[in-house]
């Protein structure tokens, strides 16, 4: 019955909007996840636009990314001058985890339970590795004297440290949330929760969230490290 209504609706676009089913042809949860992510985009956009305004206000004294992030923040490697290498590795971790996440979603379409688990585990590990890298990066910068309330010799401007820790911190919090949710998802999948439900839409919903984390990083990376 529902299928017949839907089929009819597909043919006449008008009746698609007359109730009884989603005119967008996707589940309620996915639509709401998208709208949550759009609202979250505005929070990040506010941060990054504030960054732009403060940077323009001090454009002549703004520190250079290649100088502030000039070395790999690992003991023993930090004397080598390898600008941007470490943060590029972090970017790469997120891109790879985005790929494994979308593969988990696709395994979910096939109802392949262990396929989903197989791709969720590297996703979680990449997330954890990203957080570990952020820990190293932060301790290194704090050690150099850049904190939310003080500028280091390299940065000179206090705003740089403030914006850096607030924006990457807020992004890191999102990664942490994603890691926790993905772990729950992985355990639930192993327990056969979604097999009972009959579909793996939850993997897709949390996948959207995880890709969003990657997407925000593209802009954080752009603003702090590349421009």
């Amino acid at each position, binding site marked *: 019955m529902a299928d017949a209504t839907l089929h009819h609706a597909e043919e006449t676009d008008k009746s698609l909007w007359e109730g009884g089913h989603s005119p967008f042809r996707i589940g309620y949860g996915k639509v709401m996840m998208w709208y949550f992510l759009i609202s979250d985009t505005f929070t990040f956009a506010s941060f990054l*636009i504030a960054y732009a305004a403060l940077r323009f206000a001090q454009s002549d004294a703004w520190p*250079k990314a290649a100088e502030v992030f000039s070395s790999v923040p690992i003991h023993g490697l930090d004397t080598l001058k390898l600008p941007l290498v470490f943060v590029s590795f972090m970017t790469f971790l997120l891109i790879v985890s985005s790929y494994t996440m979308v593969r988990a979603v696709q395994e979910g379409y096939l109802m392949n339970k262990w396929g989903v688990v197989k791709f969720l585990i590297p996703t979680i590990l990449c997330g954890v590795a990203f957080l570990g890298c952020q820990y190293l990066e932060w301790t290194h910068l704090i050690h150099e004297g850049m904190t939310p309330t003080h500028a280091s010799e390299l940065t000179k401007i206090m705003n740089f440290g403030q914006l850096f820790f607030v924006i990457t911190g807020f992004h890191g919090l999102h990664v942490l949330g994603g890691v926790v949710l993905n772990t729950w998802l992985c355990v639930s999948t192993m327990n056969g929760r979604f097999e009972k439900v009959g579909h793996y839409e939850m993997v897709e919903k949390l996948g959207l969230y995880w890709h969003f984390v990657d997407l925000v990083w593209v802009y954080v990376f752009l603003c702090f490290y590349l421009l």
Partner: protein
Amino acid sequence: MNFDEPVQGHLHWNEEEYGVGRKEVLKTIIILSVVTVGEVGIAIGYDLLMGDNGGMKWLINLIMAVASVVKVYFIMGTFMHLKHEKKWFILSALLPFSFLIWAIIAFTVEGASWHAMRGLLNMF
């Protein structure tokens, strides 16, 4: 939370659809990696070649901004599946971002104005 509600949408694939989707995301991850490596290469190369000189910075910034938009297009389009959704859903997700266009213009102009008035304001 009730997981038993009927869910609409295309949640089950056959082998053929799976094969197509798998190829698509593999292509996307390669594009994303290449663009990222290119970006970092340009950033480091610029720093090595131009150093403190700082000329042509606007061109580098333009390339970086375009590369980021390309990355976002592929992440949203393929990974988040937006490319394959209904037209009105795509618009409902993307149109709100048009508000940001004015926000970016307004606040960068504002920032430049603070810069011009630094002597007067002395607030930083």
